[in-house]
């Protein structure tokens, strides 16, 4: 489903963030990408979404090379991958409700469906009471839940979470992980970037370990070993 082939990313002049990275993620897998802060996890995700271009190597999504995609095709790709960004990337001038409805509108969903699904996802993420608030009126945990809600509302084939538990207390962390797990159980692919040892070890799923831009381990039932 997703294939990185000898991907290298160097920022000018000579900061090599990813160095000859190769791996494959199959449909329905739950993969954790771990590594210290600065290891290149976020860069890897940005490459997958076509937000950055690799210096060399190929990136395939569903057998098509994303480097060959036109701008409009990249937008279609981005609609198919639900991303929880490390810094949320919420729409600051729209309410909680509108943030979620926006991604459904982008996908061209019908008004009735949007109404129904948004209400449903607000319920699931416990944000119903905050529907008419703006993102800057939310706590850190609520913003993170909004980012999760927005990423999953379209039921994408793939969900990518970039340190979604970074700022959360243990209770909210558990909530987010169980949401991702539930999502995975419906047959979806989950990519989970984290530097949180405890969470990764508890998951007991495949782990790709990055260090200094290289894949140093790729374990079926991995643990966080660095």
């Amino acid at each position, binding site marked *: 489903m997703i294939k990185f082939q000898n991907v290298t990313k160097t920022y000018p002049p000579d900061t090599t963030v990813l160095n000859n990275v190769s791996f494959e993620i199959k449909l329905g897998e739950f993969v954790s990408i771990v590594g210290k802060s600065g290891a290149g996890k976020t860069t890897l995700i940005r490459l997958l979404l076509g937000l950055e271009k690799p210096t060399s190597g190929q990136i395939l999504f569903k057998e098509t090379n994303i480097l060959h995609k036109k701008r409009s095709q990249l937008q279609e790709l981005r609609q198919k991958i639900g991303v929880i960004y490390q810094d949320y990337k919420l729409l600051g*001038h729209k309410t909680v409700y509108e943030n979620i409805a926006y991604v459904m509108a982008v996908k061209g969903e019908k008004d009735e469906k949007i109404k129904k699904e948004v209400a449903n996802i607000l319920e699931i993420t416990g944000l119903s009471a905050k529907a008419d608030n703006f993102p800057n009126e939310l706590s850190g945990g609520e913003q993170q839940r909004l980012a999760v809600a927005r990423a999953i509302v379209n039921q994408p084939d793939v969900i990518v979470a970039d340190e979604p538990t970074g700022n959360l207390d243990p209770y909210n962390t558990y909530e987010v992980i169980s949401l991702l797990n539930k999502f995975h159980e419906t047959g979806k692919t989950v990519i989970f970037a984290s530097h949180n040892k405890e969470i990764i070890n508890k998951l007991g799923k495949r782990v790709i370990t990055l260090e200094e831009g290289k894949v140093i381990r790729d374990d079926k039932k991995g643990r966080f070993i660095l």
Partner: protein
Amino acid sequence: MLTNFKRILKFAGNDFSRNRGNNAAAIFVLVIPILLATSLFLFQGLSQSVISQIQSKMDVTAFFKEDVAEEDILAVRDELLRVSSEVKSIQYVSKEKALQDFIDRHKDNPDFMQALAEVGVNPFLASLNILTDQPHQYEKVSAFLESGPFSELIEKVDYSQKKDTIEKFSNISSSINKFGFILGGVLFLIAILVVFNTIKLSIDNSKDEITAMRLVGASNWFIRGPFIIQGMICGFIAFLICLIVSGVAAYFLSPKIEILAPGFSIFSYFISNLGIIALIQIGFGVGLGVLAGFILVRSYLKV
């Protein structure tokens, strides 16, 4: 497609009402170039009217010698009309008519009447009064009369005295026009820079929002649409303000301008050209608003 358009409209409406401060600023600065364009248009009308009034007062008069017969003068008139396409009209004034005109004009002035009585005979000469289409053609006509085949019959051609006034006026009016357009153009450019800068400040506010919209897969038009429609709304409101302001200004300035340019009512000119003026104002208002939205959002649509 239609759904998308409806959604873009709805986003635009929401954003517009949430962004009142910035939009008020945008409307305010949009008013400036629209009013400038409107004043240039009205000024153009004013100067055109003054020029044509002065032109209509210009003429060439050929006075014929005492002994030239009326048929000969009329023959000259017909010949002039035949050979020259530049001549618009020719009026024949006989000796008797000239005397009568003088008496009509000065009958209340005993000095003039006294002088006329002392002369005893009719001192006036028969004349042809010639109008042309363009002021510069007077020179040609006057030269033709002075040195052409009829010069023998003609006592004098009264043009050169008026010539100076005519030339002075055309010089002044053309330099006023030039100066007005250069000044107007410079002010207009400055106003457009101010418009773009103000709208840029407003759109800069949404820089992160635009990036986030790209990240979730929104197409360029889906992102740009609401900004462009907001520009359109601002431009339209600015147009309404300008239409009212310029109409009211024309109404109140009309008497004052009529003193400077008798016979020209700027308010009637405004009303009779309302369609063109509204078109200019909508064009500049909506055009600038849309263009600014289009260009400024584009710079943030990189990812």
